[in-house]
């Protein structure tokens, strides 16, 4: 049984389309690996307990809190960070643009996580209700905006991404 044990584990991550093979120490978080090893500084450290959502990234298309995800447990995974949302020319994703236009962020510390949660929502649900939006964003805390402009930003993004949505709100 001893041969199963090691102080580190080999993981294969595709981060924003770029392949990385890493040997990570047991106990390290995905957040640390993304920021320190791969240089994705758009993923923010907030609470380290899973309450605030600033560290949110997508793992295989589903949002997760990278500060409470142990990197070693991701033998193979596709990771999307906020940097991965930019288009080839470095232009903003429609959700990011809506957040910009509708004042969906002030200090911006929570914004990467909230934008990614919004992305998971609108990928599966092109016509989210106000309640759907609240539910999808419940895992992130924002201490600046009071949430109203964030919810407006997500609704606006849906209208822009799926123009048949003129009637939502």
């Amino acid at each position, binding site marked *: *049984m001893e041969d*199963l*044990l*090691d*102080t*580190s*584990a080999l993981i294969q991550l595709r981060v924003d389309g770029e392949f990385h093979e890493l040997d990570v120490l*047991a*106990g390290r*978080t995905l957040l640390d690996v993304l920021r320190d090893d791969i240089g994705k500084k758009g993923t923010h450290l907030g609470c*380290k*307990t*899973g*309450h605030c*959502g600033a560290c*949110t990234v997508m*793992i295989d298309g*589903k*949002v*997760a*809190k990278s*500060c*409470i*995800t*142990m990197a*070693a*447990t991701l*033998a193979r995974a596709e990771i999307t960070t906020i940097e991965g949302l930019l288009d080839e020319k470095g232009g903003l994703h429609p959700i990011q643009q809506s957040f910009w236009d509708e004042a969906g962020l002030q200090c911006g510390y929570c914004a990467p*996580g909230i934008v990614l*949660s919004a992305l*998971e929502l609108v990928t599966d649900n092109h016509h989210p209700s106000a*309640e759907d939006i609240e*539910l*999808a*964003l*419940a*895992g*992130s805390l924002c201490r600046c905006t009071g949430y109203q402009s964030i919810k407006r930003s997500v609704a606006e993004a849906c209208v822009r991404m799926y123009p048949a949505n003129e009637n939502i709100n």
Partner: protein
Amino acid sequence: MSLHPMYARPRDLEQASQLLASLSSGAVIIAGGQEIMPFINYGVMMPDVYVDIGGIKALKGVNVNDDEVSIGALTVHRDIQSTEDIVERLPLLAYAAQQIGGGWQVHNRGTIGGNIVSMHPLYDIAPALLALDADVELLSDKGLQRMSLLQLQNDSSHGLGSSSILTKILVKTMLPNVLWGYYKLKNSAGAYGSANAAAVIQMDGEKIKSIRIVIGAVSETSVVISKALDGYLGGAYTLEIGRAIEKVCIDAIDEPLSDQQGDGVWRKAMAGIAARRATEMALSNLTTSSIKR
């Protein structure tokens, strides 16, 4: 305790079980990590070995055998909320899984097995499963063993011991005439409950035939209340009966918790309020259709 912990990724259940049996008490099992990682991050726990069971196929999936739903321990909360067999057969469990805090991020990775073995008094899954009289299956060096969740909870408040793995949860399909309610009293949207209550009520026309209430988040372990309510069976529900149920549930709490969720005296009182509101939710008949995926 170790500054240089080891990590293992066993291939299957047999290997995981053998590995755990060969290790000392410094080993922890990890899958989604939602329970354990906050403790690791703050140095509250410093395990010698992480045994990662997240890749073991035998722990995944939801199956129905006759009238029993089998839920693999690695099933994440998001799947508990949306898997058809659970939403249709165990709507109370699907609803309770929606009440878990932390948002989609936590629901996408947190597992039902991890939620149970943490034995955290404030969590939402245990009251729902206890109300449904669920069983659990455990694997240890003694082999597979099936026991009721209530027995597991009462055996030890510290989980399973480091050599066991919770493999699946087994729950009887709720009968069509069974009404259910779940009420979580909390001070903000994502907060832990200050008092949680799950109610499962069987009706015979207008009359209450059986009633089972489980109170969570008020004492160290969930409290199952059923026999003490026998006096209120056979009649229709009235506000007086609701108040009486409230009192029975308050009296059932011996040692209320005092923590960030509130002071013990208040928590004990709120156990009754939560129980009555869960009962009223069940009787409102709206519960099955209000499930939102």
